[in-house]
Structure formats: C-alpha cells, structure tokens
C-alpha cells in the first residue's frame, strides 16, 4: 500500500508454489520447488539466489509459463502466466540462451518485435535503438553464428527489453560474462529500474546481487530460506577487524593469525578493545601495522549460513534449476 492509501499490485505474486519431476526411468519424484511464496513490487530489483540445483530456473520457468506447477499459484500483474496479456508485459532471458544462428541480429530482434505486437512503423527504429543500447549497433547485420557468448548474452537482454516490458525476468544474466560485460548488465538492470520497471533475476554471483538488488530471496533445496531487503537481512555491524602487520608479531598480541607471506601477517582481531591493544602494542614490539579493515557481515555470509544446513543436490532437470 502506498502512502496515499492506494493498494499497489505486485508485479509477481507467488503462493505455495510446488513443482516436482519424475526421477530417472520414471521412478520416484524429485521435488524441485516446494511451497514457495514471494512477491516482487513495481520498480523493484529482486534477486533470487541459490546454489546450483536450488530451484531457481524451475521457479522462473513457472513464472513465465514454461512449466506448470503441481500446486500453488503464480500471478503476473494479477493474471496467470497463461494469459497472453500478462506475458505481453514481461521480457524473459533464459539461462545460457541460444538463438537462431541463421538470423542476423537485426532479423532476430525484428522477429521478436513482431511477436510482441510492435507495429511495422516503430519496429525498425526500436530494433536499431535496442541494438545500440546493448552495444551491438555495429553488428546488426552479422549472423548470430558469428557472435561470441558475451554478444549472445547482450542480444538476449536486447530481446528481453526490446518491447519495454514492465517486468524483466532474467535467468543468470551475468553468467559467462567478463567483468566489463557484467558491469554493462548491472548498468542495464539499474537503468530499467530508473525507468520504473521491475527486474526479477536469478544469480549465484553474490557481489552483483549485493550491488544492485533492493530485495533478495535465498532458495536452497527448493525451499525459501530467507527473503527481504538486503539491509534487514544482512547486519551491517562490524564482526571483526583484519589487521595487516609487517614484521614479527609478539605472542602477547591478541588475535588469530590468518595468513603470513613476505614478512607480512594478517590478523583477525575481534572487537574494538582488542584492536586498540594491537594498535598500541605492535609498534612497541618493532613491527608495524600497515592496514586495518573492518569486516562486516556480507550477503555471502548470509548465503552460506542459509545454504549450509542443506547440501545442494540436483533436484531439477534443467541445467541450472
């Protein structure tokens, strides 16, 4: 609900979502997603985290209507994913996308523009502008078979955002990209939010998620482990200090020696009082404190804490499900 009292409809609403697959030779069933419930609001960047086999891809496939859940409901803008009016408002990038390699980038986007009902007049301009936006303007007439993995990923993002959807659903959008490519994808996702759109993406690159997400959900073994705003899930208090010391460290100095190389040691020091002692006593012993880093809880700590209780196991049939 907004401050003015109007009810804001979630762009994605999932309740009690459960999906299982037959095992090998049709024997038994593996539950890929179990009783999952979450919502994504308008203008929000929502990250779905989880180790391999956590059920991320299966969840996204149910959201876009590629898979039918055994139980539970999915609503996109209040409608089921089988409703084409709901799907008209989404853009989807699958994991490790493969596109028609006999088409050129221009032909490919023109095809998707047609599928999204973009009129003949606007199509050409839209295709050109989208290719420019993802940095493929110079490759418009190149056959996709000549594209690198990074270029295919960018083209996939172009396809998912070409029709200016209200919600972009991206499965591992940073997968296989170099640091420059990852940065570009992050910028693109942020630009989507700036234009009022929502982004729901899965990833296991925690650094990227931490940098851009408003809210995250952690999925492990098909079950939801945590969901919420990053600042509420991850405590920003200092857990300990990492202190770099050049020279021999007296035994009386508090802290755990984490590593040592080239005459320099790294200490793990718990608490401000202990740090104060280190900073006072190390110079007196002839050694030198060269750096101090406060170590706060990160998304990685939360992720490992939530995922660790259950060893990841292959539960879905999709590569990344």
């Amino acid at each position, binding site marked *: 609900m907004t401050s003015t009292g109007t009810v804001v409809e979630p762009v994605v609403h999932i309740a009690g979502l459960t999906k299982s*697959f037959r095992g090998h030779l049709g024997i038994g069933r593996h539950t890929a997603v179990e009783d999952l419930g979450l919502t994504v609001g308008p203008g929000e960047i929502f990250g779905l985290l989880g180790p391999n086999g956590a059920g991320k891809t*299966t969840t996204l*496939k149910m959201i*876009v*209507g*590629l*898979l*039918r859940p055994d139980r539970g409901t999915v609503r996109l803008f209040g409608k089921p994913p089988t409703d*084409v*009016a709901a*799907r*008209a*408002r*989404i853009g*989807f*990038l*699958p994991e490790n*996308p*493969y*596109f*028609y390699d*006999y*088409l050129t980038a221009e*032909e490919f986007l023109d*095809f*998707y523009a*047609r*599928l*999204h*009902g973009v009129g003949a007049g606007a199509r050409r301009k839209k295709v050109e502008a989208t290719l420019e936006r993802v940095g493929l303007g110079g490759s418009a007439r190149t056959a996709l078979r000549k594209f690198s993995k990074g270029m295919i990923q960018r083209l*996939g993002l172009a*396809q*998912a955002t070409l*029709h*200016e*959807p*209200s919600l972009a*659903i991206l499965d591992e959008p940073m997968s296989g990209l170099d640091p420059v490519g990852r940065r570009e994808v992050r910028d693109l996702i942020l630009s989507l939010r700036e234009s*009022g759109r929502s982004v729901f993406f899965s990833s296991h690159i925690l650094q990227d998620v931490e940098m851009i997400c408003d809210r995250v959900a952690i999925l492990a073994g098909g079950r939801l482990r945590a969901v919420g705003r990053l600042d509420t899930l991850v405590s920003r208090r200092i857990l300990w200090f990492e202190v770099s010391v050049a020279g021999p460290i007296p035994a009386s100095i508090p802290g755990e020696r984490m590593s040592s190389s080239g005459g320099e040691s790294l200490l793990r020091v718990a608490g401000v009082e202990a740090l104060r002692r280190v900073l006072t006593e190390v110079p007196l012993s002839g050694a030198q404190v060269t750096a101090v880093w406060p170590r706060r809880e990160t998304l990685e700590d939360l992720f490992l804490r939530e995922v660790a209780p259950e060893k990841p196991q292959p539960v*879905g*049939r*999709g590569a990344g*499900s």
Partner: protein
Amino acid sequence: MSAALEPKPPRAVAAVAAIAVNTFREAIRDRILYLLLAFSLLLIAASRLLSFITVGDEEKIVKDLGLSAIAVFGVLTSVFVGVSLVFKEIEKKTLYTLLASPIRRWHFVAGKYLGFMTVLAINVSLMTAALFLVLLARGEAPWMLVPAVVLTLVQLALVTAFAVLFSSFTNPVLSALGTLSVYVVGHLSWSFDLLKKRLPLGAGRRLCDVAHSLLPSLDRLDVKMHAVHGLPLPDGYVLFGICYGVCYSVVVLVLACCVFERRGFA
C-alpha cells in the same frame, strides 16, 4: 505505466505470420533442402535421357519419373526437415523465449507448419516447372499433370501435419519412423478392404473398418497413373481431395496443438 502504453499482445494472424516467416527463413537457409531439391531437379532433367534407354513409351516414362521424383523428394523433405521443426526448437531451447512471448502455443504450431508448407509448395512448384520445361521441350502439353501435382502437395500437407504431431512429443528418429509409417500405410489403405474380405465376421473386420477410416487414404490422393496415361478423373475429384487433405491436416494439427499445450519445458 498507464494502461494505454502497456504492450499489447499481437493479433493471432500477426503472431502466426511472424513464426511462419521465421520458419521459412530457417528452411531456405538449410543446405539439406537445396541438396534434396538439386537431386530432384537433376532426376527430372535426366528423365528424358532415361526414357531413351528404357523400353516403353518415352512420353509416359518422362511423366512418370518426373511425378515420382516430385512425390519422393517432397516426402523426404517433409519427413526429414519436418520432424525437426518443433523438436529443434525444444532441443536448442529457442522455444523458451518464444513461449514466454505473448503468443499462444497454437500460434507456434500453426506458424511452424505454415512456414514449412510454404517452403514445400515452392519446392514442388520448382520441380513441376522443371518437369513442364522438359515436356514442353519435347513438344508435349504438360497441363494434364496439374491435378496429380496438386494432390501430391495435398499428400505432403498431410504428411507434414503428422511430422509436426510426432515431433511435438518425441525425438526426430521416432518422429521420422512414425511419419514414414503413416505415409506407407496411407498408400496401402486399400489393403484394409482386401484384408476385411478375408476375415470372418467380428472384431477383426471392425478393426479393419476403424483403421481404414482413421488412417489417411493417401492412395486416393495419388493420381499419377491417371495423369501419365491421360485417364479422366471424376468431376470434383481434385476439389474433394483438397478438402479431404485440408480437413485431415487441420485435425492432426489440432491434436498436435493439444499435445503441445499440455507440455512442460524443463
């Protein structure tokens, strides 16, 4: 975003046309198609040569060989390219972004079918044109062959519909076997009547009736002999054949759409 600016799904015709155009592009950029077409054109061109070294009426041999080449290469194209139409999209996962688009699943099936049928129609037209040129060069009128060519295309439409049906739920090898079986059994549908006469009254005969009425009567669409020997066809036979083929194909495609509608893509 205001409702007026919300993206609208495409109209059914536009969605089917977009997929058909893409399928057409895919097929015409496939080397197998050109290979099959080149072989068939070569065979038609060589039919005159073959007529010299074969005992019999030269004109009939050219016509028979030409029409057979059109039928055989048409069926081979239909089976070997047709069975991968849907399967390739599933296997390469290109289908994921398609079905996440605001199109219905039947748009996809119809688009794939119509796109491929356009390719087949062009192929058959090219082969027919080659045959007509050979006959015209001999000073013979080729127009008597038109009904046979039209009904061959109807047969291909039917066979392709089965190829799409099979490829919507199984792999290309089984799809090809299934489609070829339909083609062969469809051409032997007269044998059900023969078999029925030899069976005692009861379940066996009823089974023959059911099989005969369910399987496509492709033999009735095969009028090559009439065309080659200049035999007249009953009035409205071609029109009836076209209606039969179109209706049968639509039923098979509806079945394919139903199968496809229920599928999940893990």
